[in-house]
């Protein structure tokens, strides 16, 4: 057998699985979004772009888009700052590195449903640790329309900052100590050394981590679905939660698929930006 034929043979099972369960659904969802499909009423007919035209004037859709935008921008920005700070703190660690990384990665590795249940309990008006530490004020974090989204963002930041911190930390470890010694000879230490040496070297990795996180924040679903269910009054209803409700609760398969396609398109735009950045970094190395 030629190497070429063997190559195809080895690839075939993986491509078959991906073709059937990833690529086919990714194309099919676009087709579905062009139809009226409400299985319980046996409705199935062509809709063309009607769902998208409706979305353009749907206030609930624009609210979900705004919630998604605020959630994504706020959590990614906080994760960047906090993640870099954690990495800088971890850098000098001599003893107990394994324990430190285990404590760091714990939040990231837990199922997001567990995180949602944990924070639901932490935020509980009467039984939660948060209100207890604030002196027993009965704040209803998840029930107040002004507080629910910030509370959700805090939970997401807690869960995903370790990922950003780990990437920055790994980069920091590769910066040779001599660079800092040389800078010290030149009279640059502390903030100056950070600005001249650390920041330029860690910035590309931080950007990659944040683009990655943007991608994940746009498609996040579990945490808000379980923690707040999109409420109160839609203040935490992201595009993914709206899509899920349309698909599986009001059973509008075509309409829900159209929202899914919008999320898909948004994520792909970020993914292309991400690929370009990787490409540019490889070119510059």
């Amino acid at each position, binding site marked *: 057998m030629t190497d070429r034929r063997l190559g195809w043979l080895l690839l075939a099972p*993986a491509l078959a699985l991906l073709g059937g369960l*990833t690529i086919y659904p990714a194309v099919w969802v676009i087709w579905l979004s062009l139809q009226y499909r409400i299985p319980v009423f046996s409705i199935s007919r062509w809709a063309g772009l009607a769902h998208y035209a409706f979305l353009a004037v749907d206030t609930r859709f624009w609210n979900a888009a705004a919630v998604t935008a605020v959630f994504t921008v706020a959590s990614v920005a906080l994760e960047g700052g906090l993640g870099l700070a954690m990495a800088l703190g*971890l850098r000098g660690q001599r003893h107990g590195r394994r324990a430190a990384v285990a404590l760091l990665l714990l939040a990231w590795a837990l199922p997001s449903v567990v995180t949602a249940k944990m924070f639901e309990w932490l935020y509980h008006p009467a039984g939660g640790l948060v209100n207890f530490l604030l002196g027993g004020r009965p704040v209803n974090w998840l029930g107040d329309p002004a507080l629910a989204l910030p509370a959700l963002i805090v939970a997401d930041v807690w869960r995903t900052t370790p990922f950003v911190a780990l*990437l920055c930390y790994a980069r920091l470890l590769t910066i040779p100590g001599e660079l800092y010694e040389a800078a010290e000879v030149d009279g640059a230490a502390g903030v100056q050394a950070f600005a001249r040496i650390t920041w330029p070297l860690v910035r590309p990795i931080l950007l990659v981590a944040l683009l990655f996180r943007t*991608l994940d924040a746009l498609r996040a679903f579990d945490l808000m679905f379980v923690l707040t269910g999109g409420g109160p009054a839609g203040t935490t209803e992201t595009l993914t939660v709206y899509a899920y409700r349309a698909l599986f609760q009001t059973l509008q398969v075509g309409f829900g698929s159209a929202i899914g396609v919008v999320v898909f398109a948004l994520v792909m735009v970020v993914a292309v930006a991400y690929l370009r950045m990787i490409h540019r970094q490889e070119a510059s190395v």
Partner: protein
Amino acid sequence: MRSGRLRDGLVLAALALYALPFFWQALTSVRPDAELLPLSHLLPSRLTAVHYEVVLRQSLMPRALLNSLGIALSSTLLAVALGALAGYALARLPVPGRGMILLGMIAATAFPQIATVSPLYLLMRALGLRDTWLALILANASFALPLVIWLLAGFIREIPRALEEAASVDGAGRLASLRFVVLPLVAPGMASAALLAFLFSWNEFLFAYSFTATEASRTVPVALALFPGVFEVPWGDIAAASLLASLPPILIVVAFQRYLVRGLLAGALRE
């Protein structure tokens, strides 16, 4: 030196504080019901195992743990087996369109589940796979596969070609050299990919929530999200169930940390 130790200790303490939400949940899982609501003291007056007894004896959690373990192990095995073959082909063999395939793999790692969940649901229903392990095994394996292929192709490329060529001089064919030279050398990389695939499947919620209907296939995150309360929310029981759901991830970050970190870095940096 002394100040270095102190600093190390402070960083560890800060990280332990960061993990406080988890430790608080652990404490809640052993706190007596009477001291849960309202919360009047930080530390409970005594510890109890009653929440674990309820979860293990009277809830659907044991069955969900079994489902999750079986589904996660099977989908990991499937993804790593198919991923190793495909990764080898992409790393070593003259496959036409190799660059495009690799690019497609990266794009596929970004696919949002919410976009593919509706067609997959219709597909699983048409195949009669709703509420079965197989539906989730296939869906989770295919979702993890692009990352697994990408990682393994990269790890295999790092193995010096000379080692393989030495083997083929000995008359070993391509497949034999894959089996006896490449796979043993790439075993640590396979462990990294397997850990990520396992964690993905163990934590996965949207597919499991949509495709399952009964305890026959309900996984741990779904059972936890739907945890029943009769008159009030059983916070102690939920905490105990959360702890059980967290055991495999904890084992992974503690015992297999090196492989996890390597997989995470290679996966994120796409090197």
